[in-house]
């Protein structure tokens, strides 16, 4: 069995030898480079773009301005600011040149005349609606109410009432590879190489926009240098590059410098919650009422992030009465979208802050309070109708408590020595496997090896190795004989990609089902070759065996027999079909759950050091613990960054202040720390391969545990992330 083993990754050899092919590594003859002039004002009416001087520069082939397309949930001035610019970083003009240095020279020769408009810079200002972030639009772009039980009366009748404002800052996903696209012009069709999480989705949104200009677009996912949710939804540059290729009839490459990536890759989180909680004096929570505000920036696409946060606001707790009012507002900032966790970290930060603050108010132990409220059995339907599928929440919380108590003991001793040390625990439930389904094909190649094509589009998670383990087990073949490939719309017809911790569950199950179908095909073929009835044959470890005659054929022999002879006539009794395709989806999401425990020291400068860290997760069957652990480790450090180091900051005039990786500080190896991961497999998914997904869990569990640790270390109530050094120094 390969499932459950820490198998080394099949993806790595290329990457450790410099043979990865990221977008900028792919060369095409005669390519034009696209460079983009971006708005340097947060909000203005655009009068005129002056690019005549740029056109005179040797090496400049064309300048594109004023491109507007009707794309769902995007402002009228998309992908370019034509008569209005809405944020610093929005594209205004694009230069096509034969050399990228020349392209940037040309940008210096382009100006645009504008009339400045007052920018909307935060949620409060947006809610007054006096100044509009987008001309002609109400700032309140989205309002939605979710209700379950009797929240108002349950709250009013409660013995203890708590009101709290909680803020989650704006972050930038910071994939190490900036975004990029290479459009290969082929006359009536295009091949687009992209740093994307979903080639199929990209093909569909590009064809929606340009079907009158091009017959078809093949999208190939290049190696992707990290994404974390930020390379899924359409970007202005995608449309500008494709449009530029079609109008110049040339191949076009765009790769963003980091500064531009920070000014244009969709930011994330940026929510404010005004939460009211009603409880009994013994700690039992009766009601939660939450006003959720989300700063959408200059487009109304990210509303679903607030919906996810709202509908999970009761967390892993049995709170029967709940109300969430969602307000999505427009501001003159980079549009908001998903980042690892997408709504679940926001929810968890709120419900876990509530648990800790309530425990402090009631002078209860925070774990005791959680135990009093934790869901007792699964399946469980939360007040908004989400059905948590499986698991033993109490058991996991009890296990977590052991680590928490041990860390508490050690922290106490450090505090006695005068150190500012505290321990925080978080407990969370996650909604996973956003569908609707995924596809996979499994092929027996002529050389007897197995090729698996998945519709998911992994980019660092190691899903290819995980799914190879699943298929190798199912077919009883050696792992070395299974290759998994993905990321090309010509290789598999319909697919969705990698996002929402879905790939191993949805693509993995699709591959499992396709492998089973392939086995059936192969059995029928073998029956005809071995002159047996299918019913007589057995499939055993990559061989087809007839127990009566002891005759057997290997997969390789069947492949040879089917494909080895050229010419002749059709002499098969069964169709010589050496491949099978399957689709897999589920009628519910999966709901993994877990707990993080952090021991935190805060020094007098306000610097946070994590002294010990343990994460516990129940994600159903763990196919490759090494890979799952890698996801958890990476996610924890991202959660740490979001808690202490990272924040996209705008000044009061709407100018971004964090425009480099020097200003926007993702953790280095020095601030990072060692972690321990413990998994259980009690809460299985309702699928043939009962894995639930672990891509995002750690970004959900980490911030509330770390912030609680800081709160305990500094003795002051904490209600926002990030907590920066200046917030934490006693001086």
């Amino acid at each position, binding site marked *: 069995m390969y499932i459950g083993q820490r198998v*080394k*990754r099949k*993806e*790595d*050899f*290329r*990457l*450790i*030898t*410099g*043979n*990865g*092919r*990221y977008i*900028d*590594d792919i060369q095409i003859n005669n390519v034009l480079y696209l460079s983009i002039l971006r708005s340097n004002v947060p909000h203005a009416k655009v009068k005129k773009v002056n690019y005549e001087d740029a056109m005179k520069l040797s090496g400049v082939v064309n300048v594109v301005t004023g491109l507007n397309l009707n794309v769902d949930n995007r402002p009228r001035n998309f992908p370019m600011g034509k008569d209005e610019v809405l944020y610093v970083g929005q594209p205004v003009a694009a230069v096509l040149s034969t050399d990228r*240095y020349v392209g940037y020279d040309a940008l210096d020769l382009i100006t645009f005349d504008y009339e400045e408009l007052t920018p909307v810079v935060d949620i409060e200002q947006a809610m007054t609606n006096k100044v509009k972030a987008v001309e002609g639009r109400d700032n309140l772009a989205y309002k939605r109410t979710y209700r379950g039980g009797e929240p108002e009366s349950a709250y009013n009748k409660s013995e203890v009432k708590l009101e709290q404002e909680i803020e989650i800052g704006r972050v930038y996903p*910071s*994939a*190490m*590879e*900036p975004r990029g696209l290479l459009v290969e012009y082929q006359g009536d069709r295009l091949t687009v190489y992209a740093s994307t999480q979903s080639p199929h989705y990209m093909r569909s949104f590009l064809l929606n926009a340009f079907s009158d200009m091009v017959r078809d677009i093949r999208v190939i996912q290049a*190696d*992707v*240098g*990290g994404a*974390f949710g930020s390379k899924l939804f359409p970007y202005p540059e995608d449309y500008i590059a494709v449009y530029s290729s079609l109008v110049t009839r040339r191949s076009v490459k765009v790769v963003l*410098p*980091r*500064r531009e990536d920070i000014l244009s890759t969709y930011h994330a989180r940026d929510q404010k919650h005004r939460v009211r909680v009603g409880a009994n004096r013994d700690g039992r929570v009766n009601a939660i009422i939450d006003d959720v505000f989300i700063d959408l920036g200059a487009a109304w696409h990210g509303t679903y992030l607030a919906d996810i946060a709202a509908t999970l606001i009761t967390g892993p707790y049995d709170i029967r009465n709940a109300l969430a009012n969602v307000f999505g507002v427009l501001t003159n900032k980079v549009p908001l979208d998903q980042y690892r966790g997408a709504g679940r970290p926001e929810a968890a930060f709120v419900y876990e802050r509530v648990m800790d603050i309530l425990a402090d108010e009631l002078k209860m132990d925070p774990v005791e309070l959680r135990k009093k409220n934790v869901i007792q059995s699964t399946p469980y339907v939360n007040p908004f109708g989400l059905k948590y599928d499986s698991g033993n929440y109490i058991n996991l919380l009890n296990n977590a408590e052991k680590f928490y108590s041990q860390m508490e003991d050690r922290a106490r001793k450090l505090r006695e020595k005068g150190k500012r040390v505290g321990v925080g625990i978080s407990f969370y439930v996650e909604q996973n496997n956003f569908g609707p389904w995924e596809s996979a094909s499994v092929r027996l190649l002529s050389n007897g090896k197995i090729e698996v094509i998945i519709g998911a589009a992994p*980019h*660092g*998670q*190691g899903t290819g190795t995980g799914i190879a383990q699943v298929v190798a087990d199912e077919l009883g073949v050696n792992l070395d004989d299974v290759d998994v490939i993905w990321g090309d719309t010509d290789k598999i017809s319909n697919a969705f990609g990698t996002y929402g911790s879905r790939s191993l569950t949805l693509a993995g199950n699709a591959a499992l089902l396709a492998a089973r179908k392939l086995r059936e095909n192969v059995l029928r073929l073998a029956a005809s070759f071995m002159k047996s009835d299918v019913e007589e044959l057995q499939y055993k470890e990559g061989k087809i065996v007839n127990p009566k005659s002891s005759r057997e054929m290997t997969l390789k022999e069947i492949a040879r027999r089917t494909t080895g002879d050229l010419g002749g006539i059709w002499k098969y009794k069964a169709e010589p079909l050496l491949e099978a395709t399957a689709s897999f989806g589920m009628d519910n999401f999966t709901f993994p759950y877990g707990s993080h425990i952090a021991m935190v020291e805060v020094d007098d400068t306000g610097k946070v050091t994590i002294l010990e860290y343990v994460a516990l997760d129940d994600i159903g069957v763990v196919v490759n613990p*090494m*890979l799952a*652990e*890698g996801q958890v*480790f*990476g*996610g*924890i*450090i*991202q959660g740490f960054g979001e808690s202490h180091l990272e924040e996209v900051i705008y000044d009061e005039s709407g100018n971004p202040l964090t425009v*480099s*990786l*020097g200003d926007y500080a*993702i*953790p*280095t*190896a*020095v601030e*990072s720390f*060692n*972690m321990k991961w413990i998994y259980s497999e009690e809460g299985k998914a309702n699928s043939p391969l009962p894995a639930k997904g672990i891509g995002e869990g750690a970004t959900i569990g980490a911030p509330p545990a770390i912030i609680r640790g800081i709160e305990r270390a500094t003795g002051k109530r904490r209600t926002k992330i990030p907590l920066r050094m200046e917030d934490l120094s006693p001086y």
Partner: protein
Amino acid sequence: MKVYTQNDKVKIKLKVNGEEQEVEVEPRRLLVHVLRDLGYTGVHVGCDTSNCGACTVILNGKSVKSCTLLAVEADGSEILTIEGMAKDGKLHPIQEAFWEKHGLQCGYCTPGMILQAYWFLKHNQNPTEQEIREGISGNLCRCTGYQNIVEAIKLAAEKIRQNPQEYLRLA
């Protein structure tokens, strides 16, 4: 000091992974772009402010961020990139260790990280964990959380200690 004007093209010589290369470059062209144009695309660009280290190469025995040097400044130098780490198809112990310890996910920071580890281990074959963390603090990784990278460098140090002359002779 040489003064170049914008339209000058300058002929420079580089020895990259033991191969002589002669190219004509604009004086403003960054070393990283010249290396990439020569086909050493394992040298990555991750930022424009010297923060990320994805472009790290070894130049005349020193670890440098090749986005922060003009190609003309590197004239006459010997450079090691990730493409020169494996010899005759055999991986360098640092590459092996990154694979073994799951020290990479998306792989984008990996070439720079491996070269930085090489330079670091050349100077310290018995590092403490804290020394390793400080030694790679100029190289950012967004995927792994660094723990497995640190473990990989510890393992690589062990392997290298067995035969330092062999494993540290590259540059």
